């Protein structure tokens, strides 16, 4: 039963999603009661968020819908290597970034009263223009990221419940807008905490239920939880072993060795070149005989003459011509001379069909001993097939190359430049608040990713066995990775409760990032554009909150309208993935601003220019993101992009005058000197 049909049968999942959204709104209302009415509270929750909420809100913000749906799809395509490449790297890098960047930015933000990254960059580099350039870049990079969230939610609900994606977008934007409007970042933090708990729970519950269903397909059947996991993985080991390793599975190596041996024997003993020469001679003689019979005085067959032939003669003639066309240049010329119209696309298809028919007839006749003459003619005809050269088997490749595996390190670096994560860092009550987030983040990532990676890997095994049908990417015959999780739940578990929970989990993961992004963009427009333009004391604190709320509303409305326009284009997804590279490539700026006293505005400009130029160049080279496996020198593009941008920053900074001592004193605590 497919997912759509299953979901349509029961309305329970939709009721569950509705109930979840109502609870979320209720939580938003509750948290807005805690809102103190000040701009500081709206932008950074009066820097009063405790350790657990900081962990949940930052974790929820960094984990998008990709953590549930994307990780499953990626594991389906690549195997378990995804866990190490993305989740474990993220654990190591995120914790390090929180420790080194997060705590320090919090301290600077607290000390100097910043609420946005741009405020920090403007003062650190003593350049208002640099801040404005970074503002534009950050907004440009974050908008596709935000649109992906709205569109993904719409598409997911369309695939699972048949809902109009425009309606889904409208509902989630309205819910998020309501609580962010009322309570600002404080409400976003409360909602994120709740949503993060929900999607973590979803992953674990789905894992247990799917393990049971997959194990039921094995000979032993389902058992305890651990037995189910073991049996499901062993099933994959039997049918799709390459999905269980990052490198090359020994089973695949054995198969390669065998086919290589066969190839070597064929190459040595087959005498392909001799067979080819014999074939050339035989087929040209056969063609001459046919043309003698049907070619008339010009020794060629035109369209009219060809159509005038009997059915069997046409098949035989088409067979010979098609075989000749598959040969070398001389044979192609021969075919063209014998049948001048054979070069057209339409004629070729027609000839190919007749060739297939003749081949099938000849194979049957060759196996039939009752009519010796017919059998002999068929065998002669079969001998006219062009001999095939032995094909050298391709050496098996690792699921993920070593270089690619290393360069996955650069993906999680982007978290250091995300403006919405920056804003959550500033909500911390004290630097100590970060401790839990730093320690628990790697565990939380593993908890969410491991079940999803296993589900994706099991799905690959079931798909290979023909036990699972995954919807294909439109216009291709390749399975759609984004549809894997839905297909597994829909076809294997067939439980309305789990389906509802899964829908809630995916929406929770998407919305927990959306709310922070909306709040962050509203904050940035207010604090980086309006307040510096009008002067800090021009608006009262209450007016500042009103302006921020207007901007949040404006950003939500604009994002929703943009998502409607881009709903049917894939390019926004491609662009979104590349925007990640942009954030990573700008990471050297924040790192240098915090740890390198010599970093200057010119260095930052150099970093931005190099990032911009290479980003555009490589983005275009990848077919505007269409080539998903695009690499630069075997690496993810963000790796060389970040390395080169860092070098530009260093060169640009060293080539210019060092910042004033006053600036250094302002941003670097003594202990780090």
């Amino acid at each position: 039963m497919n997912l759509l049909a299953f979901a349509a049968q029961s309305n329970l999942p939709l009721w569950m999603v509705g109930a979840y959204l109502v609870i979320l709104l209720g939580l938003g209302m509750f948290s807005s009661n805690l809102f103190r009415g000040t701009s500081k509270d709206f932008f950074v929750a009066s820097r009063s968020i405790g350790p657990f909420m900081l962990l949940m809100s930052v974790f929820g913000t960094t984990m998008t819908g990709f953590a549930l749906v994307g990780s499953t799809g990626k594991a389906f395509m690549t195997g378990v290597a995804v866990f190490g490449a993305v989740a474990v790297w993220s654990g190591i890098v995120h914790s390090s970034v929180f420790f080194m960047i997060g705590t320090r930015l919090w301290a600077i933000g607290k000390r100097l009263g910043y609420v946005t990254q741009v405020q920090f960059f403007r003062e650190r580099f003593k350049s208002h223009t640099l801040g404005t350039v970074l503002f534009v870049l950050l907004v440009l990079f974050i908008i596709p990221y935000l649109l992906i969230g709205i569109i993904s939610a719409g598409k997911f609900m369309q695939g699972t419940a048949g809902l109009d994606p425009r309606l889904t977008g409208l509902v989630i934007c309205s819910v998020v807008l309501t609580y962010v409007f009322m309570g600002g970042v404080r409400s976003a933090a409360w909602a994120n905490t709740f949503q993060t708990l929900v999607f973590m729970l979803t992953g674990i519950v789905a894992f247990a239920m799917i393990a049971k269903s997959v194990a039921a397909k094995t000979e032993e059947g389902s058992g305890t939880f651990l037995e189910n996991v073991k049996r499901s993985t062993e099933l994959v080991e039997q049918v799709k072993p390459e999905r269980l390793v990052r490198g090359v599975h020994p089973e695949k190596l054995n198969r390669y060795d065998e086919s290589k041996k066969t190839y070597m024997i064929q190459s040595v003993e087959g005498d392909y070149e001799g067979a080819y020469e014999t074939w050339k001679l035989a087929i040209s003689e056969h063609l001459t005989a046919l043309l003698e019979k049907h070619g008339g005085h010009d020794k060629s067959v035109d369209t009219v003459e060809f159509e005038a032939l009997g059915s069997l003669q046409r098949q035989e003639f088409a067979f010979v011509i098609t075989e000749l066309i598959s040969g070398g240049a001389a044979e192609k010329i021969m075919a063209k001379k014998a049948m001048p119209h054979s070069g057209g696309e339409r004629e070729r298809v027609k000839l190919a069909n007749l060739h297939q028919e003749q081949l099938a007839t000849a194979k049957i006749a060759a196996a039939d001993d009752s009519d010796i003459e017919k059998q002999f003619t068929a065998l002669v005809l079969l001998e006219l097939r062009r001999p095939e050269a032995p094909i050298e088997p391709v050496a098996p490749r690792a699921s993920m190359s070593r270089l690619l595996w290393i360069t996955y390190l650069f993906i999680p670096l982007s978290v250091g430049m995300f403006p919405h994560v920056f804003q959550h860092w500033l909500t911390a009550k004290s630097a100590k608040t970060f401790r839990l987030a730093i320690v628990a983040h790697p565990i939380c990532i593993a908890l969410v990713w491991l079940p999803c990676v296993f589900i994706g890997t099991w799905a690959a095994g079931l798909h290979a066995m023909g036990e699972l049908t995954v919807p294909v990417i439109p216009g291709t015959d390749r399975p759609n990775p984004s549809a894997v999780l839905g297909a597994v739940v829909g076809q294997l578990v067939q439980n309305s409760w789990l389906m509802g929970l899964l829908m809630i989990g995916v929406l929770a993961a998407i919305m927990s990032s959306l709310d922070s992004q909306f709040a962050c963009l509203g904050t940035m427009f207010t604090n980086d554009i309006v307040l510096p333009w009008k002067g800090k004391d021009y608006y009262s604190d209450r007016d500042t909150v009103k302006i921020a709320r207007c901007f949040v509303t404006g950003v939500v409305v604009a994002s929703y309208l943009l998502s409607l326009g881009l709903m049917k284009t894939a390019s926004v997804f491609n662009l979104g993935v590349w925007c990640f590279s942009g954030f990573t490539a700008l990471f050297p700026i924040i790192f240098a601003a915090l740890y390198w006293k010599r970093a200057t505005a010119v260095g930052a400009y150099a970093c931005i220019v190099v990032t911009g130029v290479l980003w555009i160049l490589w983005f275009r080279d990848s077919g505007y993101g269409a080539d998903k496996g695009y690499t630069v020198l075997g690496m993810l593009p963000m790796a060389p992009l970040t390395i080169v941008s860092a070098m530009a920053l260093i060169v640009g900074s060293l080539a210019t005058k060092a910042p004033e001592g006053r600036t250094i004193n302002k941003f670097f605590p003594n202990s780090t000197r």
Partner: protein
Amino acid sequence: MRYFIVTLAVSLCWLHQDWFIWPILAELNYQENFLSWIVAEEHEVKFGIPANVGFQLFLSIATAFVAFIAVWKAWPKELERWAEADGYRGRGRGRGGRYRPRGGGSKSSAGSKPSNRQTSRPESNKDSSERTRRRRGGRGRGGNSQSQPRAGE
């Protein structure tokens, strides 16, 4: 301690490149020594988990452990005090940001040696009570090397 933590973090990154580990483990397996029970090949499924995933999962836990040691032993205590200090005061004199944790009495500064060059300020409010200033170099206004309370304190 911070260097030790950095070493641990770098080791985690190095261990994450696990391809060099599997041949070593295979060699141990061949020798059949006391470590054989943990030995597995990359593709081998142990307890329902492929060995390479098990190893990466172990690294996740190890990362949390290293992070725990980092926040326990290498926590930048002075950063919080620096953040709590008034960032705008003194900047006009080119001395903004020169705050150090107070030497005695505070748990957070237990790791640093109390200095007789630091003097406490009257505890007029919470912020100022946690703040001390250090005069750099030379002799103080009082004619000795100790820093003096600021005017009006």
